[in-house]
C-alpha cells in the first residue's frame, strides 16, 4: 500500500507545500497580531504621557508592517516564478 501511494503521490512536493503553508500562514497571522497589539499599546502609552514607550511600540508596529509587506512581495515573487 505504501509503495503504491509513494509511486502515485509526489509526497515531497505536497509536503513542501504544506510546510510552507503552515510556517508562512501562521507567521503572517502572528506578525499581524503583534503589529495590531503594539499599535494599540502605543496609543495607550501616548495617552498616558509615556512618550518613550509609545515610540518604541510604534517602532515594533512599523517592523511588523514591513514584515507583512515583505510577505506580500515574496508571494508575488513566487507567483512569477
Amino acid at each position: 500500500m505504501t509503495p503504491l501511494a509513494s509511486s502515485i503521490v509526489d509526497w515531497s512536493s505536497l509536503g513542501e507545500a504544506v510546510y510552507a503553508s503552515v510556517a508562512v500562514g501562521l507567521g503572517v497571522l502572528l506578525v499581524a497580531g503583534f503589529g495590531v497589539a503594539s499599535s494599540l499599546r502605543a496609543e495607550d502609552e501616548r495617552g498616558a504621557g509615556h512618550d518613550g514607550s509609545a515610540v518604541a511600540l510604534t517602532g515594533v508596529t512599523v517592523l511588523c508592517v514591513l514584515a507583512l509587506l515583505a510577505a506580500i512581495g515574496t508571494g508575488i515573487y513566487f507567483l512569477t516564478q
Partner: protein
Amino acid sequence: MTGDIIVALVVATALGFDFTNGFHDTANAMATTIATGALKPKVAVAIAALLNFVGAFISLKVAATVAGGIVDADSITPTVVFGGLVGAICWNLATWWFGLPSSSSHALIGGVIGATLVAAGGSAIEVKGIVSKVLVPAVVSPIVAGLIAALGVFLVYRIIKRFVVDRAERQFRWAQVASSSMVALAHGTNDAQKTMGVISLALIANGSIKGGDDFDVPTWVIICCATAIALGTYTGGWRIIKTLGTKVVEVRPPQGFGSEAVAATVILASSHVGYPLSTTQVVSGAVTGSGVGRPGAAVNWAVAGRIVAGWLLTLPAAAATAAVAYAIVDLFGNGVAGPIVVSIALAIGCFFLWRANRATNVEPEETVSENPTFGPAPTAARVPAAV
C-alpha cells in the same frame, strides 16, 4: 475547415467557462471583506476583477499541469474538450444557483474525464495523475487551510485579548483588504491558467500548436482568458458571496484577514509546486477554520456540510453531464452539427437561468453581515438565499 470551426466553438465555450469561473469564485477573495464592510461590495468585486486580470499573466506553470497527466493526450479531440467544458459550465451554474462555493477546477477536470471516458474508454484515464494532482490536494488543502486558520485566528485573539474587542478588530481592516487582494491575484494566476490549459489541449489536438511537455500557451489565449475571468469576477456571484461571507460563520475582521492570508499562502505554495489546487476549497476551509478559532464564534455546520457534499458531487456530476454532452455530439457524427446543437441548447439554458435569476436576485447589499464592523448596517430588503 470543420476542425477549425469546432476548435472555434471550443474556444468560445472555454471562455464561457472562464467567465462562469470568475463570477463563481469572486466569493473566494472578497466574501469576507464584503461581509465585514471593509470594502463596499462593488468596489471589492472591481478590485478582484482587476487583480484576476493581472494574475492571469503572471505564471503558466499550472496551465502545463492541466494540459497533461489527467487523461491520455492522444485520446483527446476538440469535441472531447468541448463536452468537458459543457459539463463544467452546467455544474458551475447549478452550484451558483444554489449558492454553493464548489470547485470550478474540479468541475473542469471532471468534465474532461467524463467526455474522455465516453470517447476513448477507461484506458485513456490517467488514474495516477488524477489521484496525485487532483484528489490528494483536494482532500489535503481545505483541511490544512482550516487547521492553520483555526490555530492562527485563535492565537491572534489571544494576542489582542487585553484590548477592547471592537477597537482591536477594526485595526485589521487594511490587512484584510491586502490579504483578499492576494487571494484575487493568486486566483487569477491559478484559475485562468486552467482555461488556458484546456484551450491549449484543443489547439494541440487540432494540430494548431505543438504539444509535448514544453508547449507554449499562445499570447492571444492568455489575453482572452484573463479578460473572460476578469469580466466574470466583476459580475459578482452574489449568491455564493452571501453564503461564504454570512452563512458559514459570522466573519469578524481578524477572521477575514486570517482566512484570506492562510488561503493565499496555501494557494501560492501549491502553485509554486505546480498543483492545480481549488481556490474555492482552500478559502472555504480557511473561513470555516477561522470560525473554529475565534472564541465565541459559531460555525454553521449544516451549511458547511452542504458545501462539502457539493464538493463530493462535483467531479462525478460534471463528468456525467460532460459524458451526456459528448454522447449527443457524437450522435451527429464528426461534423460541426453536434457541437452547434449542444452550444445552442446550452445558450438557451443559460438564458432561462438568467431570467429566473432576475426574479430571485441576491443584491450586493445582502452580502454584507448584519453587524458589519465598518460602515452602516445594510438596509436593503433581505431575500433568503438558497443555502
